[in-house]
């Protein structure tokens, strides 16, 4: 178990927690870049996905986006953008672009399916009450779609945190940098310490997103068991790939 004590000793060393390549700085880069990517992804994908679900069109498009994203290696996209001409190339623009590209599919698919799976009876009732099309979307479909929309946000966040780690192989900062530099120096304690930090961040993000998912669901208490079971089933189908 020497490898474990080495990693713990690395983490316990105060020198590794200071400066431009210290753990807090790397964590800040990782979280900042990931949050920006998920935020931009939400701005792009959620309105589109919700609208496609509302008009009940573009199902094939949403599904194809999800499938294609699973087949395209995140690492390859990061490298392709790094070698691309300006404004890409080695730098934050390329990393952020790649992260957004991989945040979009789970957001789009889940928002689309979320609205699509809203009970048609609820939509009919809302129309019968005289709500306009956009009111139906905002007041009925959107609140009912929240569990799946948030599921998409959770999947996107997990995917982006993982991809941001791989970005360190190319040029990016973030906690992945600690792992990659550990490999470069053949410093096993460092690369393991980096791996533990990345693991802790990923689990923390997953946990926080799960908590958020439960918090923001407006109908959680009102919803019956049947509906929860249906959402769980749909969640399984629209789970994205991993990286």
């Amino acid at each position, binding site marked *: 178990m020497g*490898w*474990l004590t080495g990693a713990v000793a690395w983490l316990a060393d105060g020198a590794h927690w200071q400066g431009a390549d210290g753990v807090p700085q790397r964590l800040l880069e990782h979280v900042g870049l990931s949050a920006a990517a998920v935020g931009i992804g939400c701005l792009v994908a959620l309105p589109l996905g919700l609208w496609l679900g509302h008009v009940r069109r573009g199902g094939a498009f949403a599904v194809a986006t999800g*499938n294609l994203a*699973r*087949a*395209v*290696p*995140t*690492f*390859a*996209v990061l*490298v*392709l953008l*790094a*070698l691309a001409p300006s404004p890409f190339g080695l730098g934050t623009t390329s990393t952020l672009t790649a992260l957004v590209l991989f945040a979009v599919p789970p957001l789009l698919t889940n928002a689309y399916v979320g609205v699509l799976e809203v009970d048609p009876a609820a939509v009919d009732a809302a129309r019968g009450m005289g709500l306009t099309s956009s009111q139906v979307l905002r007041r009925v479909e959107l609140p009912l779609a929240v569990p799946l929309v948030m599921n998409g946000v959770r999947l996107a966040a*997990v995917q982006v*945190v*993982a991809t941001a*780690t*791989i970005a*360190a*192989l*190319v040029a990016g900062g973030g906690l*992945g940098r600690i*792992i*990659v530099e*550990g*490999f470069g120096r053949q410093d*096993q304690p460092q*690369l*393991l310490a*980096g*791996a*533990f930090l*990345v*693991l802790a961040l*990923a*689990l923390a993000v*997953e946990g926080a997103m799960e908590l958020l998912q439960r918090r923001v669901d407006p109908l959680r208490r009102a919803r019956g068991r049947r509906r929860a079971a249906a959402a769980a089933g749909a969640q*399984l189908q629209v*789970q994205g*790939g*991993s*990286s």
Partner: protein
Amino acid sequence: MRVIPSAAVPRAASCLLENAWVCPEYLSSRRSELLAAVVAHLQITVVSVAIGALVALPLALLARRVRGLRPVVLGASTALYTVPSLALFSLLLPFTGLSRTTVVVGLVLYSLTVLVRTVLTGLEGVPEEVRDAARGMGFAPSALLWRVELPLALPVVVSGLRVATVSTVALTTVGTIVGNGGLGDLVYDGLRTDFRAEVLTASVLCVALALALDAVLLVAGRLLVPWRRGVA
């Protein structure tokens, strides 16, 4: 900049000098290197998904048999998907070193997320009447599983295998961190030597490989369940 071996560079070979993204000269001059990377990639993927399926089946059966273990097995296999690949491969390093085994073990663990769930879903989708009828016909529990339940679960299992295979092809590239990433090794080499044709070619081959394996499984699934032909 790449060095061209031949002194008299023909006009067609200039794409190497220009560092073009698309370069037929690269394809012909590095054919054996590309082929070796594709074969390595294919081996890593197929072995990982096959072992993943062999591990997922008993886990799914266990989760079905022992009710209390169900959330544990599903929870653990889902949590694995949260772990970033670069961290997972690094954490396996003390045990399996800079080897292909490290990549395969990591990919097997990732495939379990999808496979355990789909095998379980497939088995639970078998109608109870079918089970009753088979028992009434005198099927022993093992015969019931192998000759009735698994064949009926096959369409769902194959869909899970397709998802797992496509993800695994993409994830294999990250294995380059331990020097065993198949086509990912070429992508990484292309990054370090600023060689665009190598990166684009390996990336396109990787996506093509994923789509090809997906198609193979789709066709195999159709052939294995002839009774569903024309239904779904």
